[in-house]
Structure formats: structure tokens, C-alpha cells
């Protein structure tokens, strides 16, 4: 009987799975076109899965081993089960192989089960609680059903009772694992995930690459939507990517906005996009809601506007674009791209950038800086430094990109310190002076692609007039935009953050440095330097050269927590239960360091905004400048200067 029952169950489940797959594919195809090489993607997929994805999962050893056993065992058992029980190839060797596969899968599933006994809050419950049982049931049923094939038990053991039991077990197993995969069950992640890896919108991320720059909107194409209004405005492979989510909540655990009680949870956002692409409400979502937003009040449809139906605008504006979620995501989903796409619609079509957003964008358009300062004052900070201007020298080795920190009195100290370092190293450098404009970082992340492209094009035009070997900047945001986002608009440069450049200068022996004397130091990795550009080592090298042993925070390097200053978050200022910089300062305090070294004007501003008493905040450039031993400059003669007559004051 089993020999007739099992093939029927297996092939029905497989047929239903194919049907479900076709239905799901049709849902993805509602999205807009995206240029992806379908075949090359499919060919590259196994490697992306086994190497790139595994690297991310491997950060959690328990889970990576569990997943390898369960998933590997499952794929093997499924193939063998179809051969043995589906096509009736009752070969003893195949039978033994299937037994081994189900045992591997069963032991993996036991660990899944164990983790689900007391799951952390980041994990989704609901159908996901059922999954380990389904896995165990699948493995156990096929194990027992295969014993006769392997010749361990005689045919027909157990009679009708066993057949009935196995029938139920197999039915449960294949329902969850075969057609549940394409009809929206927890196993959907395997089906959608595999295709998502194959047709990922950032293929450069695989094979050790990095792709973090936002993709430009084609503003020339009047028919293309300005950003994403409804789920169908995403590209099809973005929709596919949302479907790949396993709801592991690693993003939620790392998200600074979620931790601060702002109404954002990256996992929920991706699940909301899944609801949007399939239609429905979020009542059945089994994970943590957006802080302060109860479940069941939001719903959507592929052709309905997302904002204020499916997702509230504040959720989108809470994001600091720190990319912690993307970095953590084992399925390589691009949360930040999706958020910026939706912000673009709000800003470019609705004119609904919250709080100071509109004012900042107006300032950028009218004055080329977010503060609305008179453009003529851009070089006031360097009035006494006699810096060389590109307009005069035309060609230089290092172009020092000053950034909008030029208007900020705190950041001017950093800039002046860096100039001191540059001068001491004797390197040939110059600045753009009044020709420099905002890099466009804030405009772009607030969704104003038009203003970004305008600023970028003008900057590219300016830079094209001059010859230089590299651009060096103290601002990781400018650094990222110049390095990774100007390329799409025709500006390719070698760009370095000042920490990288100072590390090079030190390595080349061009700086004569003393030792740091100011007590213990920790280092805060800026998101746009670290996660966006992979530079974790150079700042630490610089600190080591100053004789500093960095007291690392628990969350440092690629897991560094954002200061709260990115993505225009201080401008849109969505309220939460606490402030992100306060949480970061708590991380810093845990190290008991007396000073925190930073490499970003935003981080400086956010961390210095934390009330005292707290550790001091200093930029790397300041720390280096403090210990600089200038040999050729004669000590400033303490001039026996004319005792001045007291001026008469009226």
C-alpha cells in the first residue's frame, strides 16, 4: 500500500509546489523591470549560497551548523525520496543513502527544535514554531518508510496501522516542505531565497565584493515613477528579495531605531512589503511590531499606496541608513534601498519630508549647504591658513574635500587639525574653496534624488576642470558619495577617508609623532566608513601609531552601532523612547574609556550632544595633530612683544 500511497503524495505535493511557484512568480512580475542576467545568475547561485550566504550565517556557529545539517539533509532526502519512493527505485544503496540523509536532517531539526523551546524575541513565532516539528516529522516518516527498502525491516512490517501513520507523517512533511515552500509557508525562504540570490539587484556583493551606493533614478525618463508609491513600483527582483526573508530578526536585533523605540523594525518592514506584494493585512505577523504601533491596523495591496495604508511615513523616516540590517541579513536583503525608494516618492511627489526636511532641502538648493549659510562663508574657517585653491594651482596631488563641516564650529577644529597634519607631512594639497558644494548625501537619503543629482553633477563638473591624484576627506558621508555614488553620474575618483590617508602617511614615515597622553581610548566606527566601505583597520592603525591601545566596544567593527546621525535622521527627528546617541554613549561608557575617537562630523555632533559627564570626543585628526612633533617649524618665538597700550573703550 505504501508503494502506491507515497508516489501519490509526493507527486501531488510536487505538482502543487510547481503551481504555487508559478503563482508566486506572477506576483513578483508585477514589479518593474530590472536588468539582470537570468542565466548567469542561476549559474552563480550555488556559489553565492554556499559561500557568500554561508559566511553571514557562519557568524552564528550554532545556527550555521544546524542549518547545514537540516537543509543539506533535507535537499538530499527530498531528491532520494523522489527517486526511491516516487519512482519506486527500491535499490538498497539508495535506501541506505536516504536513511543517512534523513538521520542528518533529523539531528539538525532537533537543534532547530531546541532553539524554538525558548526563542529570543527577535524570532518570529506563529507558523515558524511549527517548522521544527514538520522537519522532524518529514525526516522520521521517510526514515521509517525507507527501512524496508534498505532491507532492515521486512516488507509490510506494521501492517495498516503503520501505513496510516506514515501516510499522515509524510503528508504533513511534504505539505510543509514541498508545497508550503511556494504557497507562503515558512519554507518559502528556501525557494524565494535561492532565486533572490540568483537575481540579486547587487550582484557585486557576492564573491567578496561590496556594493553600497544607492542606485540612481533616471530623471530623464518622464514615464518612470519617482520612487516607490505602491508595491508594484519596486523592481521585480526587489519584490523577490522581500519574499526571501526568513524572519530571523537579526536585523531587528541590530537596528538602532528599533532599540531606541522609534516606530521601525526592519524585519516587520520587509514582511509588510511581502503583504503588499501578495495583498492582505499584518494581523497575522508573528514577530515584534513597530514600537508603538499595534498589529492588525495596517494592510495593503500591490496597487495601493504603501504609505499610510501598509506602513506609516514615520517608520520610513526613522531609518538612519546605517546598514546594520543589511550587514546582518543572512538572505542579503536590501532594506535601505527599499526605504530610500519609498522616501523618494514621499519627497519628490508628495513634498512630505517631515520636520526640518523641507527646510534643509530648500537650503541645499539655494545655498549648496544644508544649514542655509551664505555660500561665500565656506572658507572662513581657513582664513588664516593660506590654503592653496584648485582654481589657482589647477593641479595637485591631494584634493582635500572639506565638506559642509566647514560651516560648523566644532568640525572646524577637526578640519584645522587635519590641515596641520597635511602641512606637517609636506604633501602637496589644495582645496576647492568656494567652488565646493554639498556632496548631496543628505539630499539623497532624504529621498531628494533631483537635488542630489544636481549637486553631484555640478561637483563633477568642477572636479573635471582640475587634475589631482586623489580626494581626501574627513567626512565619511562625502567619502562614500564621492567614491561610490558619483560613478553612476560620470565621476570616477580615487577617494580616501582621512584615517586611511593618515595611516598611509604614517606608514611612509612622513609624520613625526609623539605618544598620546590623554588616558584610555575607544574607537567608534562610523557606518559610512565601516559597513559602507569596509574600512575598519586604518583608523585603528592610526591609533596604534599614537601608542593607543583601543578598548573595543562590544559592538564595534561591522557590528558598530550607529550614532543616530545618518540618513537625515536628525533632520526628520522621529520621536522614540530614547535617543540613539545616548545608547551609543552607554556602549562607550561600558569600556570605561576616557576618550572616544571618531572619524565623522556627524558622529562627533551626535555624541557630543550627549549630556555630560561623559567621555570626551575627539576626531582622529585632532588626536594626531595633538601629538605632532613639528621639527622644521621654529618654536613660535614668545615675542617680547610690545606691551600694548590698553585701548580706550567708550
Amino acid at each position: 500500500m505504501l508503494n502506491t500511497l507515497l508516489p501519490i503524495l509526493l507527486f501531488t505535493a510536487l505538482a502543487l509546489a510547481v503551481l504555487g511557484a508559478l503563482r508566486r512568480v506572477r506576483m513578483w512580475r508585477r514589479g518593474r523591470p530590472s536588468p539582470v542576467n537570468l542565466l548567469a545568475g542561476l549559474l552563480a547561485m550555488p556559489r553565492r549560497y554556499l559561500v557568500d550566504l554561508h559566511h553571514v550565517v557562519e557568524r552564528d556557529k550554532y545556527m550555521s551548523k544546524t542549518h547545514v545539517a537540516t537543509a543539506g539533509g533535507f535537499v538530499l532526502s527530498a531528491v532520494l525520496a523522489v527517486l526511491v519512493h516516487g519512482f519506486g527505485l527500491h535499490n538498497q544503496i539508495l535506501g541506505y543513502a536516504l536513511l543517512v540523509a534523513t538521520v542528518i536532517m533529523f539531528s539538525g531539526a532537533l537543534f532547530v527544535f531546541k532553539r524554538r523551546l525558548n526563542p529570543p524575541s527577535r524570532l518570529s513565532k506563529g507558523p515558524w514554531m511549527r517548522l521544527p516539528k514538520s522537519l522532524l516529522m518529514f525526516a522520521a516518516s521517510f526514515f521509517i518508510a525507507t527501512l524496508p527498502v534498505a532491507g532492515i525491516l521486512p516488507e509490510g512490517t506494521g501492517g495498516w496501522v503503520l501505513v496510516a501513520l506514515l501516510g499522515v507523517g509524510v503528508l504533513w512533511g511534504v505539505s510543509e516542505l514541498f508545497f508550503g515552500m511556494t504557497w507562503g509557508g515558512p519554507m518559502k525562504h528556501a525557494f524565494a531565497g535561492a532565486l533572490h540570490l540568483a537575481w540579486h539587484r547587487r550582484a557585486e556583493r557576492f564573491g567578496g565584493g561590496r556594493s553600497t551606493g544607492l542606485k540612481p533614478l533616471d530623471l530623464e525618463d518622464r514615464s518612470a515613477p519617482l520612487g516607490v508609491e505602491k508595491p508594484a513600483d519596486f523592481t521585480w527582483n526587489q519584490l523577490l528579495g522581500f519574499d526571501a526573508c526568513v524572519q530571523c530578526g537579526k536585523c531587528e536585533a541590530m537596528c538602532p531605531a528599533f532599540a531606541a523605540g522609534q516606530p521601525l523594525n526592519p524585519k516587520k518592514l520587509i514582511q509588510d512589503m511581502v503583504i503588499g506584494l501578495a495583498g492582505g493585512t499584518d494581523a497575522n505577523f508573528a514577530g515584534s511590531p513597530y514600537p508603538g504601533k499595534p498589529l492588525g491596523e495596517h494592510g495593503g495591496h500591490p496597487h495601493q499606496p504603501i504609505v499610510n495604508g501598509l506602513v506609516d511615513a514615520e517608520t520610513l523616516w526613522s531609518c538612519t541608513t546605517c546598514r546594520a540590517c543589511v550587514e546582518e541579513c543572512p538572505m542579503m536583503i536590501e532594506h535601505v534601498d527599499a526605504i530610500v525608494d519609498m522616501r523618494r516618492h514621499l519627497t519628490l511627489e508628495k513634498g512630505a519630508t517631515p520636520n526640518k526636511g523641507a527646510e534643509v532641502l530648500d537650503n541645499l538648493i539655494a545655498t549648496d549647504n544644508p544649514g542655509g549659510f551664505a555660500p561665500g562663508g565656506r572658507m572662513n574657517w581657513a582664513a588664516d591658513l593660506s590654503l592653496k585653491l584648485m582654481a589657482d594651482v589647477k593641479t595637485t596631488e591631494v584634493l582635500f574635500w572639506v565638506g559642509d563641516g566647514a560651516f560648523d564650529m566644532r568640525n572646524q577644529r577637526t578640519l584645522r587639525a587635519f590641515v596641520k597634519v597635511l602641512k606637517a607631512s609636506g604633501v602637496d594639497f589644495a582645496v576647492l574653496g568656494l567652488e565646493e558644494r554639498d556632496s548631496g548625501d543628505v539630499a539623497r537619503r532624504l529621498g531628494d534624488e533631483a537635488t542630489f543629482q544636481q549637486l553631484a553633477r555640478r561637483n563633477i563638473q568642477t572636479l573635471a576642470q582640475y587634475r589631482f591624484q586623489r580626494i581626501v576627506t574627513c567626512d565619511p558621508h562625502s567619502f562614500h558619495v564621492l567614491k561610490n555614488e558619483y560613478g553612476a553620474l560620470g565621476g570616477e575618483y580615487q577617494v580616501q577617508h582621512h584615517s586611511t590617508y593618515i595611516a598611509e602617511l604614517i606608514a611612509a614615515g612622513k609624520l613625526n609623532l609623539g605618544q598620546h597622553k590623554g588616558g584610555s581610548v575607544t574607537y567608534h566606527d562610523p557606518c559610512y566608513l565601516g559597513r559602507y566601505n569596509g574600512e575598519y583597520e586604518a583608523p585603528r592603525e592610526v591609533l596604534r601609531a599614537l601608542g593607543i591601545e583601543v578598548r573595543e566596544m562590544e559592538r564595534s567593527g561591522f557590528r558598530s552601532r550607529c550614532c543616530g546621525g545618518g540618513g537625515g535622521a536628525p533632520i526628520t527627528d522621529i520621536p522614540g523612547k530614547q535617543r540613539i546617541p545616548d545608547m551609543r554613549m552607554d556602549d562607550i561608557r561600558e569600556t570605561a574609556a576616557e576618550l572616544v575617537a571618531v572619524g565623522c562630523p556627524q558622529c562627533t555632533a551626535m555624541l557630543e550632544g550627549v549630556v555630560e559627564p561623559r567621555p570626551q570626543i575627539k576626531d582622529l585628526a585632532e588626536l594626531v595633530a595633538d601629538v605632532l612633533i613639528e621639527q622644521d617649524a621654529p618654536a613660535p618665538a614668545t615675542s617680547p612683544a610690545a606691551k600694548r597700550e590698553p585701548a580706550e573703550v567708550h
Partner: protein
Amino acid sequence: MSTKVISLVSIGAHPSSGRARRAEQDARAVELGLQLAGDNLQVVHAGDPREEALRAYLGMGLEHLDVLEQPAGADVLGVLGDYLRQAGAQLVLTGSQAETGEGSGMLPFLLAEKLGWPLVVGLAEVESIENGTAQVLQALPRGQRRRLKVRLPLLATVDNAAPKPRQSAFGPARRGVLAEHQVAVVEDPVLGDDALQPARPRPKRLKVIKAKSGADRMKAATAKASGGGGKVLKDVSPQEGAEAILKLLVEEGVLR
């Protein structure tokens, strides 16, 4: 209720960069108009239809903006007056003073005079429009409001007491139409070559602090600005009134 509302707009200049933009007060006039009339609001500019800064008004959600084509330096008074009368405007909103060009702030007054309409300066809010009469709030200094009932048609200027203008968005700004209208051009005889000269900041009256105590200083800082030496003349003959004014002008050194 369908009252024909027209907002008049000009080209502004950013105070620190001087770059062309939507004028702050005119944008408030458009905002107020949008709140009153929604999509029925008509927005009119007399000037160059190729000026890109006008798109910033379209970005507030207007489908089109009517431009009465005028060269720089033309006298737009007559053109605007004729246009408003022909368009059947009931409520015309405009900023108090342009940020570019002559910027004398006289246009609303001259326009109201030419049309023979009442003028409300410093409009803060339109409370209701019923039976050809508008009930409005006029902004006075120091946050005070005066409720007025004015018959339509009405010309009103807005300043910073009016609601903040909404953000201008790129999409609608790009889609919106700048509709050119060919109209007569009147040369401005007064605005000759050397009629304009850079403005000099008005000298400030020296502030003499006589206060002895903290409470006095507080009072001086928060009290209404007043000349102190003035007096209220009531029920006096025109002759006496004119003499009092003349005396004051001589005292202040305006007349010698």
C-alpha cells in the same frame, strides 16, 4: 461655495545666496489659497515665463501657473488689474513685498486703489466666506489678531503670520505647466536708469536704558515699543492736528 481665489506670485531671492527661489511671502499666499480653494486656486505671475524658479510654486501641487509675459522693468500694475477684473477674482492674495526687483511693497496698495477694492494687510487666516463677505483675521504686531468683516472682492497681503508654505516637490514642479499669456507691455516711466540705488539701512534709534532694577529692565524689554513722547489727539480740528504733526516732524528733524 466657490469663490474665485487668485494668488499673485513673484520671483524671490534667497537672503544669503541671492539665488532665485519662490518668494517666502508669496509662497504663503499660495499656501493660504490652496487651503481655501484647493485645486480651484489660480496662481498668476507677471514676468518671464521661462524663469525656472516659478516651478517651485508648481511643486506645491499646482497643475498650472498663468504667466502674463512682461519684460523686466515693465509696469505690471495695469496688466494685473485688467487681468484680475477679467478673471472675475473675488479674493486676491499676495505677499507684502517682493524679494527682487523694485520690492517697494506698494503694488498691493496701488492695485487695490486701481481696482477700487478693499485691501487687508497682514492677513493671517480666512475664517469664513459667506454671502459675498469674508471674515478674516488680520495679524497685528506682537501676536495680536484683529477680526475683520470685509466685502468681496478683496485684495489681501500676507506676511509671516500666514500659514507656512508646504514643501515644493520635484514631481509636480516638473509636470506643472507655465501657461504664457501675451498681454500689453507698459513701460514704467518712473523706473528710469538711475531711479534705483542700493538701500541704506535705516539708522536705529539709540536705546537709552534708564531702568534701575531687574524688574524695570524686564518691563522695558517686554513692553510695547512706543515712542513715549507721543500723545493721543482726539476730536481736534484738522488745523490743530496738522500743526501737531508738523511740530513732531520738526522735533524729529524730518523737517527743518
